[in-house]
């Protein structure tokens, strides 16, 4: 990945109006992978909202006499080692995955964007301190950092959210800071400043909205990683605790039965893949329509290879 060949400063953009967002959305949905991603995500959200109505049984309805049943009419996804309906647990697990993902990424988003805004806007020592702090967090392999945080806080769903949230904070700080640097010196910002707008107003009304596109893209990509991270932590026993239906946990429970009952591990795994794939595809689609550099290319050619930022390929 070489340095960008294009001019460093993005084109001047005024705050997008409503019509602009609508056009962006239309452009997004005109791409089949993005449309697919949006539909999948809508479906998962609906499933998570109405999980109790959709799931045939509760999440811990044990029936030992009915254990390890293969997929069939009675149990579409089969039953696990305790005779619980795997389909129900997959359905009920959607809420856990989405919750952990959104809360963790919400944490990263708020803390990271705030740090990035401050660092980018004020520069100097604030920038130096905040960004070195982010560099330190960024220097740990992601899962290991989450594990270390849990070593301090203890296992559990809430602590997994915090751990994952901390882990993905630096990415948001970097992305935001870069975007802020791009708009800080632009005409409208300088103009507002010269007429005496307060810093807070400036940040919220002018700088943040213009920094939004990369943040939105990063949010989608981070949601994918957060879902994976939650699954990984639960898989090793540090995340969601039994009997709550977490997909990662179901995988680790199904592992011991892999040659007796493949379905216990296969279906929750597929659920993870589908959800993560949807977030990744949506991230790609959003980048294509929101990133101004890519966007012009897209509008011209409809398709161009994307260049990934290193931060985004991190797992």
């Amino acid at each position, binding site marked *: 990945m070489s*340095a960008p060949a294009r001019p460093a400063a993005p084109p001047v953009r005024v705050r997008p109006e409503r019509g602009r967002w609508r056009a962006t959305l239309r452009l997004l949905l005109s791409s089949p992978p993005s449309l697919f991603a949006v539909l999948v995500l809508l479906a998962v959200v609906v499933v998570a909202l109405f999980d109790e109505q959709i799931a045939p049984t509760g999440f811990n309805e044990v029936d030992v006499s009915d254990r390890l049943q293969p997929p069939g009419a009675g149990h579409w996804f089969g039953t696990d080692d305790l005779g619980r309906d795997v389909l129900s647990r997959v359905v009920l697990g959607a809420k856990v995955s989405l919750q952990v993902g959104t809360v963790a990424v919400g944490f990263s988003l708020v803390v990271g964007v705030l740090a990035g805004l401050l660092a980018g806007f004020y520069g100097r020592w604030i920038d130096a301190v905040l960004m*070195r702090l982010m560099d330190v967090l960024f*220097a740990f392999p992601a*899962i290991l950092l989450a594990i270390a945080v*849990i070593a*301090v806080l203890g296992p559990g769903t809430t602590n997994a959210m915090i751990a994952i949230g901390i882990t993905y904070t630096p990415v948001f700080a970097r992305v935001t800071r870069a975007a802020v640097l791009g708009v800080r010196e632009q005409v409208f910002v300088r103009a507002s400043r010269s007429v005496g707008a307060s810093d807070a107003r400036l940040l919220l009304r002018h700088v943040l909205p213009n920094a939004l596109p990369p943040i939105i893209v990063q949010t989608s990509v981070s949601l994918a990683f957060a879902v994976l991270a939650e699954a990984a932590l639960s898989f090793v026993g540090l995340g969601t605790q039994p009997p709550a239906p977490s997909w990662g946990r179901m995988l680790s429970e199904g592992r011991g039965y892999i040659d007796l009952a493949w379905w216990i591990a296969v279906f929750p795994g597929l659920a993870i*893949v589908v959800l*993560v794939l949807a977030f990744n595809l949506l991230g790609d689609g959003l980048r294509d329509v929101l990133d101004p550099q890519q966007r012009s290319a897209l509008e011209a050619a409809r398709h161009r*290879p994307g260049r990934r930022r290193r931060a985004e*390929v991190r797992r």
Partner: protein
Amino acid sequence: MSGFALRRAAQSLVVLLGVSLAVFALVHLVPGDPVRLALGTRFDQATYDALRERAGLDQPLPAQYLQWIGGAVRGDLGVSFRSGEPVTALILERLPATLSLALGSIVVALLIAVPLGTASALRPRSAVDGLGTVVSQIGISVPEFWMGIMLILLFAGTLGWFPAGGYVPFARDPAGWLHSLVLPAVTTGLVSGSVLTRFTRSSVLEALSAEHVRTARAKGLGPRAVLSWHVLRNAMLPLVTVTGVQLAYLLSGVVVVEIVFAWPGLGQLALQAVEARDYPLLQGAVLLFAVVFLLLNLGVDLLYGRLDPRIAA
């Protein structure tokens, strides 16, 4: 060394300092007395006192930090709260397994990424390109541990070609080492390979669009000839550096894969340390990962700087 390299190295040093402080803080952030927690029912006053003294926990914090970091620089990471053995020895014992896995994974990743990524770039929007896109998109969305379980199901269970887990040291039995390595390396390699495929594709595309290549094509060289002589060379150098970055990420991805394959490496060690509340051991493992990670990133950036003077400017 250029100014850029110096600046970059100095920056890494600052970050390293921060990393060491964060890792050091770990044991002090734990609510309660970490030695007591680690000993649990094995508590007895003599062991307890010895461990506390060895860990220097009774001294003021700055002195503790200096003692710890001083030891770390010399390769002494303290002793395990659980076994009383030196942390460094415990880590070194696990290193070969993790290195085997990381290297095996990179090989698998490159075997997938280079052919697939290059083919995709040569024929954008062709069937091959479509396949490459789908494979890499799915590849980055699949949890490694699930991939591992599926591979075990198929190749260890149904087909019985490879063991379901366990590590054979190379020194003991090279063939057995390779045999035991295949499934875990393919598991992590598939995921890294997906990322690298995307990258190879865009590097090759970029190289194809470069001035001299366009010239070569204008002179009548076919795409294949152009590919071999001009493009690959230019595309592969950045690829090598990204592979370095991937190696760093791999170190993190192996944590969970080691659990799936009962692979006695550093990831497993770190998890055991968490569960046993063996904080010196956890600190040592985390510090090592972070240092390797930093060094690889530094190396990659320096290499970029050499390859592309615009960065170093």
